[in-house]
Each structure stands twice: as structure tokens, then as C-alpha cells.
């Protein structure tokens, strides 16, 4: 191996007159790839409260509370401050009630704002069958 003084200079000078490779974020948003794993979102009308998502979520980010047994009223809380955006819940959900959108710039100054609650009643069997098609 021979040493050459200043081998890097040509490369450096070449780039001096090139456009920098810096993107102008945050003034221009970046393109996201298709299927980017952003934030999990629930479609309450599809959820049959089977709790597969709760069981499989590695970060305990989903909680389902029963508000009323007779009315079949439930509250699902997605803790975005715990979520690791792995999309396992989407995969586990038998009805496709959960999906990932592509939001990722959700920084805030309070953890409370990251907690998303859905209050819903469990849909009737028929309605749910329908939407599966």
C-alpha cells in the first residue's frame, strides 16, 4: 500500500461545487415508501374485541377496557408513547380493524397527547360479516 498525501482533496473540491445532498426538511416533506409503518389506527366499527392485538403487542401499547358489559361498550387505548410501530397488531387482528397510517412526525410536549382513545360498541355479527367482504 502506498500512501498518497491529500488523496481526499479532489473528492472534496468536486463536492464543493456540487449541490449539497441535504434535504430541506422541515420545509419540504420527504417521500415515504409504500407500506411505511407509521402509527397504528383503529377502525372501531370493525373491532370484535377478540383482544388478539392486546395479547400480541410486545410493548403493551394497546389496552381494552370494558365500559359496560350489557351494551357491549368498550374503550380501546392506543398508547403511542409505548408503541414501537412493529405492526404486529395489524397482523394479529382477524378483522382488519387496525391499520398503520404513515404519520411519524407526532412529537409533542406531553405524553397525554400521545394516548389515543376509542370508545365504541361492538358491532353486530352481521354488520361485521358484511364488512369483511
Amino acid at each position, binding site marked *: 500500500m502506498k500512501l498518497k498525501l491529500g488523496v*481526499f482533496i479532489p473528492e472534496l473540491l468536486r463536492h464543493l461545487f456540487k449541490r449539497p445532498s441535504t434535504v430541506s426538511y422541515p420545509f419540504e416533506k420527504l417521500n415515504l415508501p409504500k407500506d411505511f409503518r407509521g402509527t397504528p389506527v383503529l377502525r372501531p366499527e370493525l373491532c370484535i374485541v377478540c383482544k388478539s392485538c392486546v395479547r400480541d403487542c410486545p410493548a403493551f401499547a394497546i389496552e381494552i377496557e370494558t365500559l359496560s358489559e350489557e351494551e357491549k361498550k368498550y374503550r380501546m387505548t392506543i398508547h403511542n408513547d409505548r408503541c414501537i*410501530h412493529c405492526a404486529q397488531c395489524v397482523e394479529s387482528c382477524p378483522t382488519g380493524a387496525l391499520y398503520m397510517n404513515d404519520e411519524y412526525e407526532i412529537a409533542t410536549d406531553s405524553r397525554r397527547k400521545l394516548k389515543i382513545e376509542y370508545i365504541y360498541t361492538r358491532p353486530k355479527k352481521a354488520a361485521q360479516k358484511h364488512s369483511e367482504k
Partner: protein
Amino acid sequence: MKRITIPIGPQHPALKEPISLRMTIEGEVIKDADVRLGYNHRGIEKLAESKTYIQNIYLMERICGICSHSHTTCYVQGVEALCELEVPRRGLFIRALVCELERIHSHYLWLGVAAHEAGFDSLFMYTWRDREVVMDLLEIISGNRVHYAINTIGGVRRDLNEIQKEKILEGVEFLKKRMEYYTNLGTTEPSFVGRVSGVGILPEEKAMALCAVGPTLRASRIASDIRKDDPYGAYGEFPFEVCTADTCDVLGRVVVRVKETIESLNIVEYIIRNLPEGEIKVKAPRRIKEGEVVSRYEAPRGENIHYIKSNGTDKPERLKVRAPTLANYPATIEMLKNGFVADIPLIFAAIDPCICCAERFVEIIDERKGSRGIMTMAEIKRKFKKPEIKKDFVWPL
């Protein structure tokens, strides 16, 4: 000269390998070194016993942010062996593809970090700029830049389509060109070579006795690579060479990694061109049969080994993880002895302990407790009044 002991670290970003090095030095020369782990210790092994096999995939992934795929692959391989699942070939190929892309990103990252440790910021900037190309490829394959979450028990979660394949080939082309340039640069730039050659010598016998792994071992003339010695997944089919160097120093480790990157780029190309058709995964049972398994994997930094013992439930009985960096610490201590203070970061970076932030931590240990501050700007202070620090946090033990 007076001997003094200085703390380097207390904390190092890798999960299993958070570290505090205590150096005893005389002037600028290191006389002795000692390691203390535990700053990053989170108790993953215990935690794993209380999580299901599926949840554990994601836990394993988060052992480490650089070789995240290594840990999941090693883990799912083990679980698949336990329940005797036959993973479809396409699944294995995609897994290997992500493995190699990860190796490429890790070695690019490492080259940058090594340059940064040597104070060569321009090279750091250039390599990391080019690393973005790999990150983009990984993102289009898996949907996330770092924790790909592509492995699942029984195969992989996402398939590849034609557009993605094309993009990967394009990226590989570009990366190969750049890596060749960096090979040339890294081995001919006098100030850089002056910093890395002859530094951190680890002779062959010592490397063996101290159980070094990965590029650190290979830079000491030993051609050991789990991908060749104990082929897992689809690695039996890929043509590639095990790269070694015989200088036994940091320069050798640079050379090994650079060569390996080029090999990996070739493997990626091979995988894309020979990707078999078919399913990508098979369904896995939730409960895993009783048994035990040792799973080995060649991570970018060396051998990664998981020992899994199952007891027939949906949670493992015992999950032991040995990440490669840990295996290299005894060797590192050997290398540090009689080196210069200036070489600590380089030698340390040479085993690639995900040092990228290893020195950012460098806690300026200021043992005099509660160094006093003069409040010149009382007003500002009031304005930025903060909630109290919770010093009284009690550990429930």
C-alpha cells in the same frame, strides 16, 4: 510518571454492552484496563421469560439497533428448529437479503465511526451520506429504517416485488462503486493510516485464547465465519469468500470490513438474481414443543448465539443471548494495554461495539458531588423554572 486511573465511559449504547472502562495510565500510555458493564443492562433475559414467543421477536430485535435483524434471525431460527418448521426457500432468501443489507449498513456505519474516532470527520460525513442509500433500501423492503421487523416465526412478513428488486440492484451498483473508493482512500490517506496501522495489536494465539469473534478475529488471520463454518438459512447456496487480514491491527480490521462489504454486495446481487418463487412463510404454532436449541448466526460484528429452552408453553423457559461485542471485550482489554490514550476510541471502535455514541456519553465524572453553579442570571432561572428532579425515586426492591 504518576499513574492515574481514569474512567472512560460509564455507558455504552449497545444493549448488552454498556460499558465503563477504567484505564490506568502513565502520561499518555495505558498501563492497565478494566471493564465494568451494567449501565445498559435491562434484564432482557428475565423479561423474555415472561413474554410470548411472538412478543419476544420484537424484544430480541431491540437488543440492538444495528444488528437488529441478527438477533431476530438467530432467535426465530432457534424457535423454528424447536418446532421443526420448514421455512420456504423464498422466505430464507429474503431473510438473507436483509441480513446482508444490514451487514452493509453496519460496516458503512462502522467505517464512518472509525473515521470519526480518528478525527476524520469528512470521511465520516461521506460514508454516512452513502449509508442513507442502504437505509432507504431497507426501508422500502420493510417499512422502517432500523427495526425492520421482517422476521416472524416460520418465515418473513413481507414479500419483494419487481420494483423493489430493481431499486436494490441500482443501490448495490452505487454502493459498490463508493466502497471501492473508500477502500482506496482508507488505505492510502497518510494521516488515517498513520493512526490505524500498528495500533491495537492482537496476535493470533491471543485472539484464539480470548475467544474473539467476527472481523476482530478475522483480522488476526483466522478465517472463521459462521456463515461458512455452520451454514444456516440459505447460506449454503451463496458463493462468497471469508475475508481475512494478517496485520492483526486496526488497519487489518478496516480492511476486513471493507472487503466483507463488497462480498455482501455480491451476495445481495446473487440473491436478487436467483430469488426463488413461492410462499414466504408457513404458519407457526403458538405453543412450542419442549426442547432446547443453540442457534448461531454471523452478525456484522461476529458470532451471535442464542440458547433457547422451551417447556411446551407459549413462553420460553430460558432465553440466553450472547451478542458478539461481549465476546470481544477480553480481547479489547488486551489490545488496549500499552497503547496511547489517543488510541482508546480507535481500538475500542475497532471491535465495532456500536460505539457510535460510546464517547458521547463520556461522563465527565466530576466526583466532587453537586458542583456549585453561580446563578448570575437569576431572572432567567425563574423564567425557566422546572419541575423538581425526582431524586427520591425508590427502587421497589
